[in-house]
């Protein structure tokens, strides 16, 4: 079974986790100043890369905490996990292992 490294609990089985989509999508500070095109892109358009992707995950059946993870969408390998509000050590453009 795939093990995911929860920042609170350590390595835990993947069935305890849920994915919450792309990470680091910032809500515009003043939505009223944002045009329809930009707003709809903020709401609906995501990166969907073939390779390393920054995602939000929650340890639903564990500590119940959200955290961020870099995951390779081709191999399903987790490059690293890091706390909410943090920055990853590696970059998303890092060469795939």
């Amino acid at each position: 079974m795939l093990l995911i490294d929860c920042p609170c609990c350590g390595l835990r089985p993947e069935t305890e986790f849920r994915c919450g989509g792309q990470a680091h999508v910032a809500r515009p500070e003043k939505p009223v100043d944002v045009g329809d095109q930009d707003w709809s892109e903020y709401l609906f358009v995501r990166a969907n890369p073939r390779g390393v992707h920054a995602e939000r995950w929650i340890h639903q059946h564990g500590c119940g905490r959200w955290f961020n993870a870099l995951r390779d969408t081709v191999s399903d390998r987790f490059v690293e996990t890091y706390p909410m509000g943090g920055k990853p050590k590696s970059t998303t453009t890092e060469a795939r292992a």
Partner: protein
Amino acid sequence: MLDDSLYARRVSPLDGAAKPASLPGGVTVRQLKPEARFSLRVKAGAPADAAGFALDQKINSIVVRGGRWSARLGPDEWLIGGPEADAQLIAEEVEATLRDRPHSLVSVSHRNVSLEISGANAAIALNAGCPLDLSDAAFPAGSATRTLLGKCEIVLIRAGAEPSYRVEVWRSFSTYAHGFLVEAAFGLQNAA
């Protein structure tokens, strides 16, 4: 806090179904007596005590002292238990020490049902539905964590070194969890 000692009548959802019985593989599954349990949520920060337990215990660990226990399930979540007669006392003690900090203390005594699975092969039976590594290295004595058993969420507690696990499960899932563990024990017989 609401005084529930005056009207609470404990009716187990497992009455009749959960007679203690020795199962194949030397595994025993039984229901534990009703206990008082509280879910405590408070932001981790300055060291403090709650019902006699220091809040800074390790995440996913359990401390047992004098009939009471405290399991830290996350950075800001504790499950505190004790004898049913102590319910009011535990609540008052927590309120007394955390008076100045925003916190929430919810009695979940009636929501939870405690099962115990013990015997040398207990971990193997649990692993039929629980994906955790239950080896001594990964889940030593003093561990407690929320996890899954089959399709339901449980809190799995291993207080001592002996192969005896406590399964805290919501009462509406308890017949499922109990049946699952008994079935898993029968699976041990076929595997042997």
